[in-house]
């Protein structure tokens, strides 16, 4: 079982994920992501891009990207760049983590999304049974 958590100051189901972005950094960084059943794809927002992955603000400007995806959400449209990603989800018993390869959407920095958390969307969640019991329990189990 892979457990997540809630924080009193941030009432959303959260989970720690080891994220490796090989085109950005050779480090696997531990990222706190929202378990977002409303997102089709996982996304890294600017706070994690700059703080956790050490990216510069200039590199989060879509003007310097080769390709850009425009995606819609309740907050409006935003630009993203798709980059390769590997996800590690850590089991409670400390045994070998679940590793998933794929991509992640890297968000262009805007005044509106600077403070948003990164999102774990259905591209990853579709591989798991999701168990939510109010704020008492957030768990994922590999299908």
């Amino acid at each position, binding site marked *: 079982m892979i457990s997540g958590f809630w924080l009193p100051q941030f009432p959303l189901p959260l989970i720690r994920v080891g994220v490796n972005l090989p085109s950005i950094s050779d480090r696997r960084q531990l990222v706190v992501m929202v378990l977002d059943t409303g997102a089709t794809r996982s996304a890294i927002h600017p706070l994690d891009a700059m703080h956790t992955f050490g990216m510069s603000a200039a590199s989060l400007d879509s003007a310097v990207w080769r390709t850009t995806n425009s995606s819609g*959400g309740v907050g409006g449209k935003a630009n993203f760049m798709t980059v390769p990603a*590997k996800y590690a989800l850590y089991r409670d018993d400390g045994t070998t983590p679940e590793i998933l390869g794929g991509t992640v959407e890297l968000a262009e920095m805007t005044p509106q999304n*600077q403070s948003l958390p990164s999102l774990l969307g259905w591209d990853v969640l579709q591989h798991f049974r999701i168990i939510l019991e109010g704020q008492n329990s957030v768990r994922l189990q590999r299908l």
Partner: protein
Amino acid sequence: MRGTALDPNPGFDEANRVQRFWTENYAELSARFPDRFVAVSRATNEVVATNKDLTLLVDGLRDKGFDPQTDVSIDFVAAGERNLFL
């Protein structure tokens, strides 16, 4: 310090410690620095920079000699209840 699948960066002990700090101090930080990004030294737990803009915060940290990726933890501290529609 290089993270691997089995040993990510930061490690779980450090992540737990940082998370505990933010949870225990969030109310006080929210009162002092409402709606600002706050950077806290990982070594001393002292607030070393705040700003309403993330880019300016990170630039300011570098000017002060901090590595924003490894020397501090950064979070956005909302003035009140935080409602997100993701």
